[in-house]
């Protein structure tokens, strides 16, 4: 079943690959064999972007929000337990998702932040998750800012997601099944685009999430300032957008489905140093 998927994908991609060769030739005026030079130039573009990452603006705003007394309970999030103890932000992203005894659920960073905002600060859940993804100056997302801040405090620390609890193992298995599940109008699954090496959509190289290296590189570079969005985008956003591109039903923010996939992908990245927030096209 999986082989057929890869074969089907590669056929149309041959057309794309040839188009890329053509583009590269036009660009470099050299033979089609130097198709890699277009890819090299794009690598240079990505490297040049690394300096002055606008994520830092979100990180600064997130730190302010974290420390601010808010809501009816006029409490700050500094008492929030992100998995390493109350108020411990450093390294917290590397152990998420994880099972929390107080909520009796496995939670990822975003659902945990929402939980703390509701329970510690008394904020209304519906209000908090109304704008999870910001859009411009007028529609900012507090959660995106908090995600930027919290993840920035895990930079350089090795991913270390645990599967000690049965609930964590169940969530991982569910995520794994979802990764390979094909559906929707195009019969896509995550595996369709991320299940083999050298897959590409136009000039976008797709990471192979079924290999250790691919899984590590992909997970440790989210959240990221997405140039095409002009916004800092979180992992919940990344999954939401994948679902949209697969023509799947809309992925509900903070749903069990989103946490399961996050659990699967985060755990598969274990051992790699977290490298975010990053900047991507």
């Amino acid at each position, binding site marked *: 079943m999986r082989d057929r998927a890869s074969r089907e994908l590669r056929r149309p991609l041959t057309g794309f690959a040839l188009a890329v060769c053509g583009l590269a030739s036009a660009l470099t005026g050299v033979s089609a064999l130097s198709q890699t030079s277009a890819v090299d130039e*794009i690598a240079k573009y990505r490297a040049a972007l690394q300096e002055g990452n606008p994520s830092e603006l979100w990180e600064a705003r997130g730190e302010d929000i974290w420390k601010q007394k808010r809501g009816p309970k006029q409490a700050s999030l500094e008492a929030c337990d992100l998995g390493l103890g109350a108020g411990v932000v450093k390294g917290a992203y590397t152990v998420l998702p994880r099972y929390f005894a107080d909520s009796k659920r496995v939670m990822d960073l975003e659902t945990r932040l929402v939980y703390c905002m509701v329970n510690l600060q008394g904020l209304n859940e519906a209000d908090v998750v109304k704008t999870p993804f910001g859009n411009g100056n007028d529609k900012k997302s507090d959660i995106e800012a908090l995600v930027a801040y919290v993840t920035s405090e895990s930079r350089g620390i090795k991913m270390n997601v645990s599967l000690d609890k049965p609930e964590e193992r169940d969530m991982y298995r569910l995520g794994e099944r979802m990764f390979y599940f094909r559906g929707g109008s195009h019969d896509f699954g995550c595996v369709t685009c991320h299940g083999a090496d050298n897959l590409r959509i136009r000039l976008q190289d797709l990471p192979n999430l079924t290999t250790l290296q691919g899984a590590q590189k992909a997970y440790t570079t989210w959240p990221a300032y997405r*140039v095409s969005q002009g916004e800092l985008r979180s992992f919940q956003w990344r999954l939401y957008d994948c679902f949209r591109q697969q023509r799947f039903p809309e992925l509900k923010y903070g749903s069990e489905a989103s946490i399961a996939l996050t659990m699967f992908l985060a755990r598969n990245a274990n051992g790699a140093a977290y490298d975010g927030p990053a900047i991507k096209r």
Partner: protein
Amino acid sequence: MDRQRRKVLKTGGSAGLLAFLAAAGWLQPGLALAQAAAAWNKAAFDTKNVPDTMKALGGTEPTPSKDITFFQTPDIAENGAVVPVGITSTIPNTEAIAILIEKNPNTLAAVFDVPPGTDSTITTRVKMGQSSNIVAVVKADGKYYMATKEVKVTLGGCGG
């Protein structure tokens, strides 16, 4: 909204606006006088081609110069909304560096003044609507020089 602020927002022209702001005490007294009078060259930012931009900047046709180089400027930008551009001028007495993008809806992207003591090197990020030449124009000793670099864009960055 108080009346003063409304008046400010209605005022279009740069010189008029700044004079008003100065009178209203909105400009910090610590700012150098040159800054306080900093105008915004609307005519230059409205031009649609390099020769017109040069005229609006009060300059003559620039001479190509090998002493103006691009750095950290990729040949291909994945997204035209953010194209890194770095320009260095080793022409003595460089006073200003301007970034022009030939095929943008408006040619002039930015003009940087280089006061004495400041390196004639600038790095910033610009939007490109499509693959185009980026022209770096340098004013030194009252004369104008230029260098060109072609940047291809895989996704236009002016929006829409």
